[in-house]
């Protein structure tokens, strides 16, 4: 598959996750350093940037919690509840995370199950490789 094909397929899979799971509003794949990779159509571009940055922050704090109080194996699943919605994040492929914004009354078990199922299917495509070396490719 070409890069364009892969991007289109990923977009379709994210839309599919949203459509088949009641309560899911937005789906977004982000890099560990807080940048959006792909996301569902209903999410505004600015909101996608915000969601990518804050989800990366949450996963990084989870990783620190795991290092301090767990076995340091890495960030697991994170869930944040707030009035008017909730945010769930699971690790995807190397260097990437999958985030979902859902309705307050969504079925957390089902949403998390479907998210993990998607990562199992296509996690190998949801990766963000490290930069080769600082400085390379920054300037045209």
């Amino acid at each position, binding site marked *: 598959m070409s890069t364009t094909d892969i991007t289109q397929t990923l977009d379709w899979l994210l839309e599919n996750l949203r459509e088949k799971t009641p309560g899911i509003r937005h789906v977004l794949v982000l*890099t*560990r*350093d*807080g*940048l959006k*990779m792909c996301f569902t159509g209903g999410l505004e571009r600015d909101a996608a*940037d*915000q969601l*990518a*940055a*804050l989800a*990366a*922050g*949450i996963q*990084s*704090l989870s*990783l*620190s919690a795991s290092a*301090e109080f767990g076995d340091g194996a890495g960030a697991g699943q994170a869930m944040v509840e707030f009035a008017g919605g909730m945010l769930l994040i699971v690790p995807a492929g190397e*260097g990437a995370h999958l985030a979902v914004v859902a309705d307050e009354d969504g079925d957390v078990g089902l949403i998390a199950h479907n998210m993990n199922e998607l990562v199992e299917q296509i996690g190998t495509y949801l990766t*963000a*490789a*490290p*930069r*080769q*070396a*600082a*400085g390379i*490719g*920054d*300037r045209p």
Partner: protein
Amino acid sequence: MDALKIVVVGGFGVGKTTLVGSVSEIRPLSTEEVMTQASVGVDDASRVRGKSTTTVAFDFGRITLDASRVLYLFGAPGQQRFWFVWDQLFAGSLGAVVLVDTRRMEDSWYSIDRLEHHRMPFVVAVNRFTDGPSLEAVREALALAPDVPLIDCDARKRSSGKHVLITLVEHLTRLHEGSTQ
């Protein structure tokens, strides 16, 4: 014992995480993540040699200055996409350190504007990567008021970082005494 919350701000790759890590007496909380290829063209690392990770939430460390004062240090993330974290970090903070790299002075403007907007006292510390301009030239370039302390530092050295923090605490004490007289 007085607990003082202090924030460390400044541009991308200026040494905030290094400063918090070098002065902290506890294992510092660090939220450094590997910079991915998606950041090429977004995060300009061309003038920050050897940088491969970046802070995505905040750094946290603690240092006891003397029998009566302990500082809780919060290092802010540098890039624009994480600026929304700053409001939370500023809440309850008594003062700030602005770290400056003289090769990218313009990266400091946002920090200084934001601190002035919050009316939070601060000191400016030049993390010396290269010789660069004098402190007087830096003061002029950043349009710093004469009463804002401006010093050189090496963020990698504990003694140097500690000196920056002592300068800030002395500045805060002076301001406090000035306001109660």
